């Protein structure tokens, strides 16, 4: 195997409490290869977002990275100084948040939210930025002339696509997507994920994809990790996770999915 793009090693993250600490991520290690879609699945509260945050070092107190390494192309992310960190963020790792609907600043025009990134990282002036913004919006099927609108003037799906466009503005190496479509209905969800899939192929970035919808994950991801209470309990290719789940917990997860066609797993659920 070639050198992985992103490599998480023995990552352990605590949330510091008044008296006792809460271990949200417990000794988790996994790699994401160039151009790969890696999925993280697990129940609510198992620590998926905590890992996602750690990759861009977005944690604030009381989160504490106790142990471990995060390497991006061999570079130690946890060792970056503030200036390096700023230029590392978004340029190398971009993120779509759990509630991407709310991740646009409501009082800034869409254009300004692109410009922010482009100016900070590439020193573009307004007109250059506008051009780039138009280009990015076209990629996600949003008419570029709407860049002067405010976020509340877009539907949820459109906002989500705008966020994705901002993500790709700097050609990042990896895009972390934390449940990017939970709030959307299936058709829109499908459209967006398809679009990401295409873009990924065009631009060659990797994706760390987080969701608790296993079915969706198998459709989209190359490899999948299953998390349970802060631990990564199983890691395998998408096909294997689907057809040959190893861990009991993975099996239980599958059992909880009523299938659309036929009652393949119903029996398991009933038993």
């Amino acid at each position: 195997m070639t050198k992985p793009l992103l490599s998480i090693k023995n990552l352990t993250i605590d949330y510091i409490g008044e008296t006792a600490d809460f271990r949200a991520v417990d000794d988790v290690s996994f790699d994401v290869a160039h151009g790969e879609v890696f999925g993280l699945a697990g129940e609510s509260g198992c620590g998926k977002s905590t890992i996602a945050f750690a990759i861009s070092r977005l944690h604030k107190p009381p989160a504490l990275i106790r142990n471990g390494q995060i390497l991006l192309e061999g570079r130690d992310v946890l060792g970056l100084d503030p200036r390096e960190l700023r230029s590392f963020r978004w340029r190398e790792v971009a993120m779509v948040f759990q509630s991407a609907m709310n991740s646009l600043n409501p009082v800034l025009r869409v254009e300004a939210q692109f410009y922010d990134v482009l100016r900070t990282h590439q020193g573009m002036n307004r007109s250059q930025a506008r051009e780039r913004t138009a280009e990015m919006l076209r990629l996600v099927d949003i008419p570029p002339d709407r860049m002067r609108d405010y976020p509340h003037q877009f539907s949820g799906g459109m906002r989500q696509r705008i966020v994705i466009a901002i993500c790709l503005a700097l050609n990042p190496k990896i895009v972390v997507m934390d449940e990017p479509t939970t709030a959307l209905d299936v058709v829109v969800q499908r459209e967006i994920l398809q679009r990401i899939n295409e873009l990924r192929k065009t631009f060659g970035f990797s994706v760390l994809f987080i969701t608790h919808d296993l079915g969706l994950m198998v459709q989209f991801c190359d490899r999948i990790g299953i998390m349970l209470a802060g631990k990564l309990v199983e890691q395998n290719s998408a096909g294997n996770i689907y057809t040959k789940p190893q861990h009991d917990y993975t099996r239980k997860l599958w059992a909880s999915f009523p299938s659309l066609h036929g009652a393949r797993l119903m029996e398991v659920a009933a038993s």
Partner: protein
Amino acid sequence: MVFLLRRLGFYLAAFIAAATINFFLPRLMPGDPIEIMFSSAGAELSIENLAALKLTFGFVDGPLWQQYLTYLQSIFTGDLGRSIKYFPLPVTSVLGHALIWTVGLMGTATIVSFTLGTFLGILAAWRRGSIFDVVVSVGAIFATSVPAVVTSLIVLFFFGFTLGWFPTGYAADPALDPSFSLTYIGSLLYHGILPMLTLCTVLTGGFAVTMRNNMINLLGEDYIVMARAKGLSDSRVMLWYAARNALLPTVSSLAIAIGTVLGGSLVTEVVYNYPGLGNILYQAILARDYPVIQGQLLIMTVAMLVANFIVDVSYVLLDPRLRGA
């Protein structure tokens, strides 16, 4: 627009209601202003002279509703009657003079403390739990919880009397004529420092706390996290993303704060003998100077309404979500 129009409607209604309260309040006050005027001036008038004087002052004993109508009419024509204490000055000019001082003092104090408080609040929230945050929070608790009377008295005591660094009264050196000269303005500032200091102490804490709390609430928002993830500099995230949005509720608290400012400036003016509206009101109440009291309350209400309206407008300007509505 619709939003602003509706607010305007409310303001008009509020204004009329306030004017109405204003009309009835002094009329319900016990004691006859003319009599008080003379008993405290140590002079005596015969019954006939008193009656003649009362007439001149416009204390007609007509039916209340008639007085009320005349009153409303005169308000809308900007005629607030004549002051009794500062006879024969019209109320508008008594208040006009005082207004300049109050607006100068209060306006500056509000701007200074709003800017300062907001800034402290932003920084404190940004550096949650740091020494700075602790100092700001605790300082704010102290500053906001001590009554303006107490603050002004203590400040006056130490800086005015004990240390003698600052004058203990006047808005400017009485030896100087008002002008745009450096000396006069310097004197204005020198005399304004203590009242200003007091007002700022009282106000800054409140603004700082509001801003800090709003900021902290906002810092958890996704778009702030996204801004950080975008690799923007801390100052940009702090000011352009967090502070800007946190300012919205702070601005609305500013409108309410105007009331506090008015109250605070009233006390401060009395303690420092600053010739502003608050002092005039206080004197007018002592002298039962109805026309001034009425005019005063009306002006203060209008000030509050205007402040609220400005806040509404800036709300709309700051928050695009309201613009379409």
